[in-house]
């Protein structure tokens, strides 16, 4: 591997770790109600990382195509994970979120008469789930065992479990955006819809409006024809604590209502963190527990048998743990111990052809 390639691969590893930390912090910041500036920095960092991975996917695809092995890269080396965990995120998650921040808010005005503010947020969230796939990218970098077979099989199992989990989450999130089911989100949405319709139709006096809004909760500002009738916080407080994704604006017939999205965002962030932790623990479990275990009970005996067959003087038996002796691999190992090694020993007995531990490679320096 060239120095440049090695540097880039190490850089990708660092960025993978960074993106896992960033993914965690982005939701943790919402849960802990960090300041807007901190959350915006995390949001743009997320966008930068998404762009980095998009570029990585493009470069890897180009490199693979140039060597006529794009299909290998995409399917065997799991380029499809690189794709799903990069381009859709820029297009449907960090990109729109960053644009919303730059544009100054999330407006869902006049949506065919139905105030379905949550469906847009949900659609963006579908893409966000794909971020979790990145935990799998770390597999390509961390090799906890020397065995290629162990690496391949453990990667396959982990990809299947994590990808299945993510796919289910994507389907559930996408389904939630299309099919409305009874939920806390829906209750929140319906409560605010009823409040908006009531304010629109009844136009209550200011003191009654105050009482009503305080009772309902979740409403930040009510304006009619540009005049503020109610505001829960001061402008300075809004500037410090509310980013573009923390509120939604409902507008119709001169009535404008700013709705607090933080309770829903917190709920989503908590749920995202749970999924994130499940996937990270799952991946770490595969890397640090299952992978060595797979190596121990599958590839190690194969390695011992391969050495025994390749090297004339190698005569160690395969260690057969009692609890695994019925496994196919250990049944084979038992035959190796009972039949092959004694046969090899008899075959080599008294011959001069016993191989030396020395090889020509050991004396190359003498001839240079």
């Amino acid at each position, binding site marked *: 591997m060239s120095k440049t390639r090695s540097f880039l691969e190490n850089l990708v590893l660092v960025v993978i770790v960074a993106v896992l930390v960033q993914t965690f912090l982005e939701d943790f910041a919402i849960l802990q109600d960090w300041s807007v500036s901190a959350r915006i920095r995390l949001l743009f960092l997320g966008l930068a990382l998404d762009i980095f991975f998009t570029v990585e996917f493009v470069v890897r695809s180009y490199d693979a195509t140039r060597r006529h092995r794009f299909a290998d890269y995409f399917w065997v080396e799991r380029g499809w994970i690189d794709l799903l965990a990069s381009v859709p995120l820029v297009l449907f998650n960090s990109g729109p979120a960053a644009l919303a921040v730059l544009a100054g808010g999330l407006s869902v005005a006049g949506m065919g008469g139905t105030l379905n503010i949550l469906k847009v947020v949900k659609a963006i969230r579908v893409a966000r789930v794909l971020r979790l796939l990145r935990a799998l990218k770390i597999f390509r970098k961390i090799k906890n065992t020397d065995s290629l077979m162990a690496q391949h099989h453990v990667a396959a199992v982990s990809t299947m479990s994590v990808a299945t989990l993510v796919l289910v989450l994507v389907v559930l999130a996408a389904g939630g955006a299309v099919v409305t089911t009874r939920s806390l989100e829906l209750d929140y949405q319906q409560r605010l819809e009823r409040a908006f319709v009531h304010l629109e139709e009844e136009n209550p006096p200011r003191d009654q409006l105050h009482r009503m809004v305080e009772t309902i909760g979740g409403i930040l500002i009510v304006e009619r024809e540009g005049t503020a009738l109610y505001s829960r916080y001061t402008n300075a407080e809004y500037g410090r604590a509310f980013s573009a994704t923390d509120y939604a604006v409902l507008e119709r017939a001169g009535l404008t209502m700013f709705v607090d999205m933080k309770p829903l965002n917190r709920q989503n962030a908590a749920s995202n963190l749970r999924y994130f932790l499940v996937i990270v623990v799952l991946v770490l479990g595969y890397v640090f527990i299952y992978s060595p275990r797979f190596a*121990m009970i599958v590839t*190690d005996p194969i390695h011992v048998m391969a050495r025994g067959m390749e090297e004339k003087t190698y005569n160690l038996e395969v260690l057969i743990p009692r609890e695994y002796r019925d496994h196919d691999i250990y049944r084979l190992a038992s035959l190796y111990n009972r039949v092959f090694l004694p046969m090899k020993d008899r075959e080599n007995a008294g011959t001069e052809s*016993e191989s030396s*531990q020395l090889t020509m490679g050991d004396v190359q320096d003498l001839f240079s």
Partner: protein
Amino acid sequence: MNSDSVKAKAFIARLLQNPALKGFSALQQEEQIIQFLHANAAQLAPTLSSGQFFPGKNWSQIFSLLVGALYGTINDVLTPDLEKIVSRLNFTFIQLMQQTRLEQEKAAAQVGAYLTKLKDKPETRRELTGPFTAAHFGITNRYLEEIFLRKSYIHFELTKVQRLRLGVEEVRHFLDLNLLLKPAVYLFISGSQGQDRATGMVQNQFAERALSQLGKELKALPEPVLKSVVHGSVSFNDNRFIEATARLSAIFSARGRNYQANVKVDRGADTPDKSWFSTARRNYRFYGFDIKMLDELYKIAAENMW
């Protein structure tokens, strides 16, 4: 010493420094290098016959030079090592067996001289590898300790069948002497007469003839000891009455042949001694070993993770 010899010695010295040869006894290292030279002759010959090494010499001449240098270098280590082993031998066990006085120095000198003879003759030098390695690394010691603690089959064979009224230390010296002198039987062999080439075992009647010869040359040692020495090369299949010490020396001599100290065991592999005894148990007929002794030694190795 001419320049070719100096170069040959330097070349051999570099080979001996190779980490791959660590954990082998001097004679095992010698075998390893000879096998290396044989196996890689085609690649080594053009380079070693160049101007930098031995110009104008063909491979056969170069090989002789290198093997001569190798023997010399190994002897520098082997001779004092053998002397040390012999000097540590305590011949008291002979006095206890025979109830007669024995001159320790005289016996040691005779054995030492005989070992020089064994190491100087190529056929016996090769056969000395296993016994020397076993004695050098003290392979027998740890097993004898366990044998005497267990008081099982081997102990019964030593004390009741062979009737050795000896402690573990005396038996250890007996076994070490038995091991070191085991190749002596091949001094009386011409060609492959009476010998199984694969296992090195000799026919019973041939062993008896060798015994009488050996008795004339090693007068300091009594017949029961020499019998055990010679029977170390006789198959237990052919003679069910050979001494327990002879059977043990046959086993440990074979074990010493490919023994490597401090070998790193691969993950997933069993321990070296346990693996060796397990294979030996399955090939006991082929090598003429006593299966019951192998069973016990296998158990000892397994229990101690050797």
